């Protein structure tokens, strides 16, 4: 199969009026991703609002409610492609609900773009966005210093802002941070290099997005397959399928090879991979995040919610969990409340046993003594689940280290949790069991 361009997911964040909508509009416009009817619609709304000028920001302001209130209420997704890459932009607004929205939009991002207004420099909101990106462990960060035209393209000012940000970086544990001076309004350094900043030798924003290395953003070292669906044909037409029993799922980490040893958790039953089944034929090996169906040598008892792992790299397990949580709902989190907890492919009952402290999202400092977590708060909590779950720390695997909390009754998704590394590795339930 010929491989085509790969895909980069990124999100944009900035305070209101930093120029985020203009920047996205500019990326779409200058990369020729806009269509005639979209431009026509822009012109129509420009006439209606009377300003008479095309407003690139209108491109990303979707719902009527927003147009009426003049605010963006949620995450919106935009798509564009260049010959080198396809892009998914999660546009997350910067007003009060920013933490919730940013977590929602950025959880699967490879990269975050933080906008800073060159006149204002690094403000508290910029620090918050950087902290959230760091908490979510987004691998790459771009600080786009916008409105450079309003500071006469001063290199000094750019370096000053860069220094402000770098002062703050050591706490963030971010390995890849790029600084780019831009003017979203005029298009400098967004898609086309700017003649106004001869002192800047780096790539344009799009150039950087096209070339940043995302190949190692997935954990490829510890095999994890949360079992999603047991694939057992009912009335197979082919006799060979009578005994087919496949375990389907999306690989959450690592690589699996035909013939390798495998352990099912929490049971601890072991077997070998007989076949990696896909509609396109059997594979010799498969890796995260491919969706596959494994056929094992032995008919061990495995169902949805179990995890198949490499016995040489066991995950953790337990029912007493320590996690960071971002609270997403207007009804605050209080210790003692019961929720459903969805982790990989299983949902269990859970009770939040303690709120240890709130995290100051602008400094990452602990703020002890928080009786509850309100919407947009991030805090450290203890959770006890009705049965042990098999997991990794979020830092080593975003998929096996994360969970959501669901409110019982309303079924609202109320919390997004990131697990600390497990204290104990998984102990097979049936230790002495030998097939």
């Amino acid at each position, binding site marked *: 199969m010929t491989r085509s361009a790969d895909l980069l997911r990124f999100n944009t964040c900035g305070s209101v009026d930093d120029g985020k909508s203009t920047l996205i509009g500019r990326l779409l416009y200058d990369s020729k991703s806009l269509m005639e009817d979209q431009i026509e619609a822009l012109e129509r*709304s420009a006439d209606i609002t009377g300003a008479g000028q095309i407003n690139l920001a209108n491109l990303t302001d979707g719902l009527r409610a927003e147009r009426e209130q003049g605010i963006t209420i949620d995450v919106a997704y935009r798509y564009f492609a260049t010959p080198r890459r396809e892009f998914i932009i999660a546009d997350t607004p910067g007003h009060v609900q920013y933490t919730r929205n940013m977590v929602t939009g950025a959880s699967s991002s490879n990269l975050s773009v933080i906008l800073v207004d060159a006149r204002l420099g690094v403000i508290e909101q910029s620090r918050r966005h950087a902290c959230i990106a760091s908490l979510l462990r987004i691998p790459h960060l771009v600080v786009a210093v916008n409105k450079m035209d309003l500071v006469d393209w001063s290199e000094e000012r750019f370096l000053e802002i860069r220094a402000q940000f770098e002062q703050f970086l050591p706490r963030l544990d971010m390995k890849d941070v790029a600084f780019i001076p831009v003017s979203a309004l005029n298009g400098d350094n967004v898609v086309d290099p700017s003649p106004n900043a001869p002192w800047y030798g780096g790539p344009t924003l799009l150039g950087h997005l096209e070339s940043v290395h995302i190949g190692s953003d997935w954990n490829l070292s510890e095999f994890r397959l949360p079992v999603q*669906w047991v694939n057992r044909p009912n009335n197979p037409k082919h006799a060979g399928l009578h005994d087919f029993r496949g375990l389907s799922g999306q690989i959450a980490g690592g690589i699996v090879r035909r013939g390798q040893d495998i352990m099912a958790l929490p049971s601890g039953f072991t077997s070998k991979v007989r076949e990696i089944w896909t509609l396109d034929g059997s594979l010799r090996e498969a890796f995260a995040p491919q969706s596959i169906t494994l056929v094992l040598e032995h008919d061990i008892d495995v169902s949805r919610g179990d995890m198949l792992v490499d016995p040489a790299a066991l995950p953790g397990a337990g029912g007493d969990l320590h996690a960071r949580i971002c609270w997403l709902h207007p009804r605050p989190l209080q210790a003692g409340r019961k929720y459903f907890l969805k982790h990989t492919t299983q949902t269990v009952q859970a009770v939040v046993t303690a709120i240890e402290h709130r995290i100051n999202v602008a400094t990452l400092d602990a703020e002890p003594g928080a009786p509850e977590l309100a919407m947009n708060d991030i805090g450290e909590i203890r959770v006890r689940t009705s049965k042990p779950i098999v997991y990794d720390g979020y830092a080593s695997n975003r998929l096996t280290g994360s969970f959501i909390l669901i409110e019982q009754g309303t079924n609202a998704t109320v919390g997004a949790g990131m697990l600390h590394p497990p204290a104990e590795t998984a102990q097979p339930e049936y230790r002495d069991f030998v097939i």
Partner: protein
Amino acid sequence: MSNYYLDHLQYLETESIHIMREVAAEFERPALLFSGGKDSICLLRLAEKAFRPSELPMPLLNIDTGHHFPELNSFRDARAAELGAKLIVRTVEAALAKGVAVQSPGQVSRNHLQIPVLLAAIEEFRFDCCIGGARRDEEKARAKERFFSFRDGFGQWDPKNQRPEIWNLYNARINPGENMRVFPLSNWTEKDVWEYIGREKLAVPSIYFSHRRRVVRRHGQWLPVSELAPPKPGERVEDLVVRVRTIGDVISTGCVESPANSVADIISEIAVARVTERGSRADDKVSEAAMEDRKKAGYF
């Protein structure tokens, strides 16, 4: 470059398969909306990828306005039979006869009538989830749509009350009477859909390819002439070589002049196309908020 990386189509594919399997595992009575259009053709292939060698664990459902292109319906029936899938068709015609749906006076289009017919089918079969082929790049209101789009007891979408979707964890829990619409192609663009059709060598209805058709110019687009949609006084009927980019009904689906005869032609046409595909559907032009209004009322 390491061998362990996915290109954009492979990435979109694995994301969609994961969502399909979540639906099969979390819902009791799901259905897959299949019209025979290009997006639902991709959906069906993804369902095969997710569930083979088993049978598809859900029936296919189509709401037939009676204004479909005949090519589309015959394609739909043939494809369902080929896959051995169960196909359920509910028609606007029957719903009008039974009074389940009522046409507003003077209205010719039946697009809005799909809503009550779909809701009635959901009730009839007690479907708790319908998988649809909508994509976020189609339209502004869709850009905010979730993969798992929660609908209340009336099938309504409330843009302010959608569940946050974080990592690949989808909250599929609903109470009795409530419903979920799931859109596995949310992150796909028109270009991705055609590239996938090309890569997977999928058959599509002939009207996507260039053919001769009698059309009239109306509201800046070429509309097909048929018994249902005759030319208005003063309109000149032309015989042009056209194709359709997106299939609605025979009344409002605009045609584009195009010589594209193969999937490869279509892909290169899209690469330089200057009009989005929804730009060729008259029903969205009515107002900027047209789609949003229909979604709130329970549209797919």
